[in-house]
């Protein structure tokens, strides 16, 4: 830090994809840039570390994407998941800009690969990073370093000083030591608040303490809270978070991609009382995995149990931890801490409701139960072939929706108007576009597009 300038042109708060895109863009425009990454170096990159692809508009085949994915179809997909909770102008801006981002990303070190095995359905819409999100983060840090960007790790910003419609400086702790960070422009790209369990519990209710956090433990929303307290305009439902059902044995934080479970459509899912509570076969898993976090969160103790038999064990991607296995349904229930008689009753009732018919694991096969209060409308086959397998499910929080409201220049506002030298990018403002639900690879699109806009605007401001 001794070779830092007294005042930077730009200070970027955060160290993930959006922060890096802003820093690189501004540095290339000639600005002196400081990145304040809250995590230590091995955990740098926020939730970008756990991502794997970038949803990208394109009018024709463009490596690694096949076919075409045009603006209207992309927007339509977004409208489906958000149920209209989006800012259409910002959404169209993100979508339209995504096409030129693909080349920019490659020019700055990101490498792509053909769609991963098991994700062929995304080969048209999503460009997969070679090596995943951490490889992207590494590439951007190297590019930023080569451009002379200063990088501070373990740099927690505690307060953003807003004075007379502009930011004057930041209070930060860097490796435990207090620092005052002076800059002429600022970009906030420090993510949501999903790792702050107290905040989650206040927003969602006490049961949120049983949630698992899929990503970085460093997204505690300190800067977001600080800005909201100073009157910055917000967007997004403050009580909501995006949660999926993941392996209940996952680490409390940072379990990432490997903790996902794809077994639900081929299983019956019971709660801790051994009772089913939702149609496991409502739709194909890519269209339903996102609702199961919420479903499990609504059950007693926020836990569910997916039970399958030997017929189905090879129908889904391998799990990170081996399934619990037993030769009888009762044995499986006992091993999972469930009442064996209650589970036996549920399985017997389910098996009796199954009807013969063709089973097609990869499509909606209409093989449904008859006469159950909670039906299973596809892939309903009796649990009758030992050994039996079970997975515990818990809600895993991916991100929160509450964020800073921005305009098309990524600029942050108060009710008195835009803050003259403050921009925001990434999860901290994603709620402006993604007000509900989730679209695979869209978080990286928002981060890249608005990170670049923020970097460009900030550099122009100080030029």
């Amino acid at each position, binding site marked *: 830090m001794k070779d830092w300038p007294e005042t930077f042109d730009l200070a970027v708060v955060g160290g993930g994809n959006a922060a890096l895109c802003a820093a690189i863009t501004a540095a290339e425009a000639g600005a002196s840039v400081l990145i304040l990454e809250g995590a230590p170096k091995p*955990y740098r990159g926020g939730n970008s*570390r756990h991502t794997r692809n970038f949803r990208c508009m394109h009018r024709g085949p463009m490596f690694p994407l096949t076919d075409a994915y045009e603006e209207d179809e992309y927007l339509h997909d977004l409208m489906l998941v958000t149920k209209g909770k989006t800012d259409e102008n910002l959404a169209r801006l993100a979508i339209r800009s995504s096409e030129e981002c693909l080349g920019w990303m490659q020019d700055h070190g990101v490498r792509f*690969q053909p769609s991963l*095995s098991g994700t062929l359905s995304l080969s048209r819409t999503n460009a997969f990073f070679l*090596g*995943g999100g*951490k*490889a992207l983060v590494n590439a951007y840090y190297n590019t930023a370093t080569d451009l002379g960007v200063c990088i501070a790790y373990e740099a927690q910003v505690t307060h953003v000083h807003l004075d007379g419609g502009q930011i004057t400086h930041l209070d930060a702790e860097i490796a435990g030591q207090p620092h005052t960070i002076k800059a002429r422009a600022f970009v906030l790209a420090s993510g949501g608040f999903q790792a702050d369990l107290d905040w989650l519990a206040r927003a969602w209710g006490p049961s949120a303490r049983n949630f698992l956090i899929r990503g970085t433990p460093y997204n505690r929303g300190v800067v977001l809270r600080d800005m909201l307290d100073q009157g910055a305009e917000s967007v997004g439902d403050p009580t909501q978070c995006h949660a999926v059902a993941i392996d209940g044995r996952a680490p409390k934080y940072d379990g990432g*991609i490997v903790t996902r479970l794809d077994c639900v459509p081929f299983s019956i899912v019971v709660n801790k009382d051994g009772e089913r509570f939702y149609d496991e076969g409502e739709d194909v898993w890519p269209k339903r995995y996102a609702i199961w976090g919420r479903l499990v969160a609504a059950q007693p103790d926020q836990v569910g149990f997916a039970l399958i038999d030997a017929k189905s064990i090879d129908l889904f991607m391998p799990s990170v931890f081996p399934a619990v296995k037993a030769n009888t349904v009762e044995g499986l229930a006992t091993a999972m801490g469930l009442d064996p008689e209650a589970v036996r009753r549920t399985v017997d009732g389910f098996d009796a409701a199954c009807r013969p018919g063709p089973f097609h694991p990869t499509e909606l096969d209409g093989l449904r139960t008859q006469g159950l209060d909670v039906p299973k409308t596809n892939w309903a086959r009796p649990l009758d072939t030992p050994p039996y397998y079970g997975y515990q499910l818990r809600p895993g929080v991916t991100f929160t929706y509450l964020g800073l409201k921005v305009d098309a220049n990524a600029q942050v506002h108060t009710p008195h108007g835009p803050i003259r030298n403050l921009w925001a990018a990434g999860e901290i403002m994603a709620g402006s576009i993604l007000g509900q639900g989730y679209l695979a690879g869209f978080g990286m699109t928002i981060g890249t597009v608005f990170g670049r806009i923020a970097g460009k605007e900030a550099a122009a401001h100080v030029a």
Partner: protein
Amino acid sequence: MSLDLTATEEARRQIEICNACRYCEGFCSVFPAMTRNKAFADGDLTQLANLCHNCRGCYYACQYTEPHEFALNIPAVLAEVRVESWERLARPAALARLFQSQGVALAGLLVVVLAWFFWALSAWRPDTGAGFYAHLAHTTMVAMFVPAFLGPLVLMALSIRDYWREVGGGRVGFAHIWAALGSAARMRNLSGGHGEGCNFEDGDRFTDRRRVFHQLMMYGFLLCFGATSSGTIMHYVFGWQAPYPLLSLPKLLGVPGGLMMVAGAVGLAWLKLRADRSLGAARVWGGEMAFVLLLGAVALTGLALYAATGSALVGPLLAIHLATVMVLFLLMPFSKMVHGFYRLAALVAEAGAAGAKT
């Protein structure tokens, strides 16, 4: 890495986590091979370990390396499983344990063989003969080197046969061998998947240095091998005896080959000093380094011997050169030299398994 698990058990723990992620599929052949399994028998892990070229791309791209509680370090654990498989499959295994891990042992053997050659040159100096055959007769050299070459080669072949059984390799087709040779010829598994090289010696930045230096060594070695083979053919088939002029096949192949090997050895040793030892099989670092230096010494002394033609240095240089070559041959089944054989076998097996799948 857990202390209470064997390397194979630890590799299984790590690979099962990998198999639920698959972000690294594009780096090399290991990950596509992995995704064909849901459970991993010991032989599967041996095969994956020998398919791994230690490019380290997956380590730097991994969200689950330490301090994360999953503590993945795939390059290191596969390196350990790989080295253990070479020790297990070598006969006798104790020699592999000694010479793979101990550079000192290799140097010690070199000193003994060297002393023996100095003695042989003074005791068996022939009455006639040109060039270095004036110091040691051709027939004497053949009598020493043919068994020293063929014996280890037979042992190596037996080990590869055992390897094939352990990993459950299938019928070998010409296409599988062709695919494996093509992969080795371009060192495709050190390309990073994007052609920009690997993460061997410069942290998470990709460089082609290891691929370049390895190929200088490999092609240099093959050229030198070709030089020796062509000399043998010229001697026995055409009755044309050494020394050969510069514009002859043994020299046209051998001189560039030797220069390439020296450059490759210097480069590989330099990279090895820069690379993070905790991402490889740290306990065999000394043996691996000694092996690189031995290859460099073989080439350097061969070139020096040629340069010294006609001078009084030919005698001692011949002893030194022959000693390095002898040690290289004798240690073929017990040194890092085995990696070429096992890696090729693994690539052939992978070509077969991938082909069977599609």
